[in-house]
């Protein structure tokens, strides 16, 4: 579990620190305050196996790529936006570091440096890579470095990912649930991974929060099936229906809840990052969602960082703290404000006071 996080020169943060992190951490703040950037920072810090696919996923998610006559089916990723003020010059860096429960520091420094590799020729662009982006992780006394070649297109520093991004992040210490996460392919693959496992009960429990009459759910494994829409790929059997119905015939909530619970069971002993956690959920289901999350994060040793804009979302979390009598350090709310050195913290006790007094935390 991360106890604190420090970010420098990353996206909109020149220098920013979050302290007293708990097991569940809800990030609030205005639009464009940098909540998602904090999730990204944690994701990158925890890529310390050297696998940088999450980097490309987050650039994809934000549309930070460009197409070029020499793209050949794979976009060129524009890495400049990762840096404070979108500035990339030689020796420019951003850094992310954390302290965990046992007081060990883990850090990542990402640096633009001249490329001395003579094999860095890119035939598509007919260009030698002038620079690389060096990822330098340090934990305890170990150091690990991973470099990616950078090229110039239209005066921008770009890089390309050759292989397809696989589904699920099982090699990473953090799972990032963004809007793109809720694809039919991802959810079907994860469902197949946990069906007939003990975790299946949890999947049903969560879906019945949204639809109490849900009996069974099964992926559509017809050989002709192709995931062409946003929602689909599953059929659902309800108490009062003689025939299974496509999941898409039901509301957005059931789809989001399915994605969320699959992400949870796929995050054992890791960190779960969820952007806009209550999107698509009616306010009267949010409390039960938090209750399920609280139970699961303890059972599976998960630390969770989630963002929200809604009052119902944080007040429901405060309600959970009060009704379950949860210790003050376990659940936190952090308000993120641009240009500030620290987050504004509400621990469990303070969030209950804030909810009861009508104090605005967001």
């Amino acid at each position, binding site marked *: 579990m991360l106890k604190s996080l420090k970010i420098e020169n990353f996206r909109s943060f020149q220098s920013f620190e979050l302290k007293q992190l708990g097991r569940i951490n809800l990030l609030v703040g205005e639009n464009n305050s940098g909540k998602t950037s904090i999730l990204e920072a944690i994701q990158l810090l925890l890529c310390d196996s050297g696998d940088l696919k999450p980097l490309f996923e987050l650039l994809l998610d934000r549309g930070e790529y460009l197409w070029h006559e020499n793209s050949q089916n794979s976009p060129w990723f524009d890495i400049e936006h990762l840096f404070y003020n979108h500035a990339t010059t030689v020796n420019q860096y951003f850094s992310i570091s954390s302290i965990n429960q046992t007081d060990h520091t883990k850090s990542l420094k990402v640096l633009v440096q001249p490329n001395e590799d003579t094999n860095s020729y890119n035939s598509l662009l007919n260009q030698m890579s002038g620079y690389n982006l060096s990822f330098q992780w340090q934990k305890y006394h170990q150091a690990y470095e991973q470099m990616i070649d950078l090229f110039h297109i239209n005066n921008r520093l770009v890089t390309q990912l050759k292989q397809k991004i696989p589904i699920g992040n099982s090699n990473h210490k953090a799972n990032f649930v963004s809007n793109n996460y809720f694809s039919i392919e991802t959810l079907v693959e994860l469902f197949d991974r946990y069906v007939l496992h003990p975790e299946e009960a949890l999947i049903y429990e969560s879906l019945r929060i949204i639809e109490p009459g849900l009996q069974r759910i099964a992926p559509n494994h017809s050989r002709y099936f192709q995931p062409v829409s946003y929602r689909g790929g599953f059929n659902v059997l309800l108490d009062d229906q003689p025939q299974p119905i496509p999941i898409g015939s039901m509301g957005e909530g059931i789809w989001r809840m399915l994605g969320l619970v699959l992400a949870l069971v796929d995050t054992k002993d890791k960190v779960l990052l969820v952007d806009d956690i209550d999107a698509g959920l009616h306010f009267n289901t949010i409390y039960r969602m938090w209750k399920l999350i609280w139970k699961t994060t303890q059972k599976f040793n998960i630390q969770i960082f989630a963002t929200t804009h809604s009052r119902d979302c944080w007040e429901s979390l405060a309600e959970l703290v009060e009704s379950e009598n949860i210790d003050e350090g376990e659940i936190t709310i952090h*308000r993120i404000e641009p240009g500030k050195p620290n987050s504004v913290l*509400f*621990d469990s006790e303070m969030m209950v006071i*804030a909810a009861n007094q009508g104090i*605005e935390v967001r």
Partner: protein
Amino acid sequence: MARNIHPKVLLVEGDRDIWVVVRLLEKNGITWEWGNEPIIQIEYPGYPQKDRGGKDKLLKSKFIASYLNQRGCVALGLLVDADEDASRRWQQVREACRFSMPNIPNELPETGLVFTTQNSGGDAIKFGVWIMPDNRMRGMMENFLVKLIPEGMAPLWTYAQEVVTEAKILGAPFTDAHQDKANIHSWLAWQDPPGLELHQAIIKQVFSPQKAESQIFINWLRDLYDL
């Protein structure tokens, strides 16, 4: 469910204190246009549910810290009764504040405390403390209002106190700690109309809100909230 965020908040013990402060400010030319944003948002523990409030909830570290961390807060004040011992109350206030304001001064000035602190995000916030009646003496809001009894009414006030002492001898059941309260409510019983509430008595000039004795408190509010 939307809440108007007010940057200037005064925390008090209960509902009654709100109205006394509002009327005192009004009578000193700081008027509240009802329907518009209040000049200061005055709240107490349990405020939204109209609970009883109380010192114990008010003087808790996390209660004060929660208000300090409220979005948009620029000034936060704490108004509390001294009761038996003003310096002991100040130590209690200081202890409750130290969690979120390690730099809170050691001493409470006679004119009330106003100092600049920070919330946990690093925003500068003006923080103030006033201990009723005057940051020095034992007592409460009632003792502060006693000082605002008009000059010409001094003999009646003396008489009210004598009557209460007499009543006590005759077996009136109020406790010694509430002697001041009994005095002022006896005094209020003989006004026109009898039995006004404290804040109504300010409007009716049963107390003189502009008397010099009230100005130190008014100035504390002016200073803290830039009124």
